[in-house]
């Protein structure tokens, strides 16, 4: 009779510890499978300013493009498929659409197009869908997923024609679209950029120098600090939330996890935009080099946030629309070439790999 108050939305956290010396480490795979990255935050303890190479990596994220009012059927354009989808990696995500309310579109680098539609839109489109996994009553959201490398989805194929007809005639979806291409850039996206209103954007970089920052004593084994506490603390530092828990302030009761030390200086750098996994991987390599050369720092932290309204979760899997929240992962790098990777997602999402 009474409501089950213990049944609250849960979060999923997968922690992994490995070494770069280990040939079988999965870090590259995890970074590559997180296709849509909104923000990268880096915390460098005992650091006043970033060395030149690291600074170049932080400021060197490539531009992305926002195409206004793009008809979704243009993503099936043969020129676009040939120059962008089948050559290199194209990342595309609908912009300004709420995943539980509006039709959302995602184009992944493996050539997969995902449409997250409501009931009316799905019925108008007239295409088959995957069964929604997160509720027994599949009335909330319908996910249409097509792979352009399938034989039926090649231009002229039966599935291709059907989807094209659906998007052109039955359901003329028009969205604002964030798109980037690796390594082609503007050239590879010319079939789209030449026909519609677009603007180029550079990822924004913000830097904060922190003095006398209480830091947890992090070691490469997972027993040093509870991962949840460490992630809470990293989030507090990134959001500029006080961890002093002073009696005069009621806004924050967060504290630095024990055991802790005090860093005389720390650098917090955030890069936000539509970020490429390839460049995040390059940034990780630069952070490794920095850590090798640094005398004072014993660890660095990198956190990558996904988009809240992305219709896909880890590795392009389906995500739930019941509750908000994005996917993110935090990487702690240590001097001995080991790392801790914490993969997190919200309630009802696909479990991180």
């Amino acid at each position, binding site marked *: 009779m*009474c*409501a089950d*108050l213990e049944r609250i939305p849960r979060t999923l956290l997968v922690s992994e510890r490995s070494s770069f010396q280990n040939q079988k480490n999965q870090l590259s795979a995890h970074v590559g499978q997180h296709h849509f990255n909104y923000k990268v935050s880096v915390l460098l303890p005992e650091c006043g300013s970033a060395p030149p190479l690291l600074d170049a990596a932080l400021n060197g994220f490539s531009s992305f493009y926002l195409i206004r009012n793009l008809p979704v059927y243009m993503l099936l354009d043969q020129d676009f498929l040939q120059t962008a989808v089948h050559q290199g990696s194209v990342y595309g995500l609908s912009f*300004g659409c709420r995943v*539980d309310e509006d039709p959302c579109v995602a184009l992944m680098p493996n050539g997969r197009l995902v449409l997250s539609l409501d009931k*009316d839109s799905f019925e108008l489109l007239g295409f088959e869908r995957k069964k929604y996994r997160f509720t*027994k009553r599949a*009335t909330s959201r319908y996910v249409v997923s097509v792979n352009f490398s399938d034989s039926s989805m090649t231009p002229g194929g039966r599935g291709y024609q059907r989807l094209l007809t659906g998007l052109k005639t039955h359901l003329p979806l028009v969205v604002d679209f964030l798109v980037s291409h690796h390594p082609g850039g503007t050239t590879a996206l010319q079939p789209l950029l030449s026909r519609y209103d677009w603007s180029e954007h550079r990822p924004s970089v913000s830097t904060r120098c922190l003095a006398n920052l209480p830091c947890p004593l992090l070691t490469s084994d997972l027993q040093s600090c509870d991962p949840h506490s460490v992630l809470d603390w990293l989030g507090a530092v990134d959001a500029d939330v006080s961890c002093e828990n002073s009696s005069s302030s009621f806004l924050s009761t967060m504290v630095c996890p024990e055991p802790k030390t005090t860093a005389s200086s720390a650098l917090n750098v955030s890069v936000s935009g539509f970020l490429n996994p390839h460049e995040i991987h390059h940034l990780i390599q630069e952070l490794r080099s920095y850590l090798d050369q640094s005398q004072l720092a014993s660890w660095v932290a990198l956190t990558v946030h996904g988009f809240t309204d992305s219709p896909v979760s880890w590795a392009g899997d389906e995500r739930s629309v019941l*509750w908000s929240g994005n996917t993110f992962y935090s990487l702690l790098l240590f001097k001995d070439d080991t790392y801790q990777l914490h993969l997190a997602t919200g309630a009802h999402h696909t479990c991180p790999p």
Partner: protein
Amino acid sequence: MWSRKVKVNSYFWCLFLSVGFSTVAVNYVFEPTTKKKQVSHHLVLRSGTAVLSRVGRSRPIRVLNRLTIVMSDSSHYRPTAAEYRRFDLLAVYPTTEKLFHAACMTYDVDIICISVTEKLPFFFKRAPVNGAIERGVAFEVSYSAAIRDATMRRYTIANAIALVDTCKGKNVIVSSAAEKRLELRGPHDAANLSLLFGLSDADAKEAVSSTCRSVVLHAERRKSAGGIIHTTKTSPEETPPTPDDRTSTANHKHPVWNKTDMIGP
């Protein structure tokens, strides 16, 4: 309190937009008395304010007019009343078990309101509740009373739990019935609150989104005689639409998937 008007201005629409709603129903609660038996005609929002542009979004906010009739007698609901047609949504608030049964089984309404400010005067029975669900009528639980007063919070939760226990979480909508700005909560907050009422995660989400959409569709069907007749509102300055325009208007009036809230008078 039931007849008090609230001035709905642009600030309200911005407030609804900022918290995440895309459809808002402005409610007028009418309690028939011996002196007042008809709904005032000037309480309906003008059509000019019906569609407002949304800052930063391409889809405009949708505003609906809703009438809630407080029924303490069966004569208070008049199915052929002309003034009901001016409102997009029609709700009843039955105060006795007999009226509740009649509202569930026979009345051509869209929403049945559940008492949240007092102890339930009757028990919910599965037969009328299931009958209402089959007809597409939704049950509404409003949460603003729970925000205002601790005693009413207990009544709200207790009555909502009793309802959810009977209807198994189907056809339940959660709305604010807000009379002040501070009583308004976002759709995710309302969905979280619904968990206290015994709704599952999916039902709680549906209570602020798809079930509300179903209610709006039900209202359109009710007003169009089962989808056969479709009417289009035109202002005096506009010319009547041609048959082609009417068809495109019908297409555009197809309800969208959105989060809906209903505010009080």
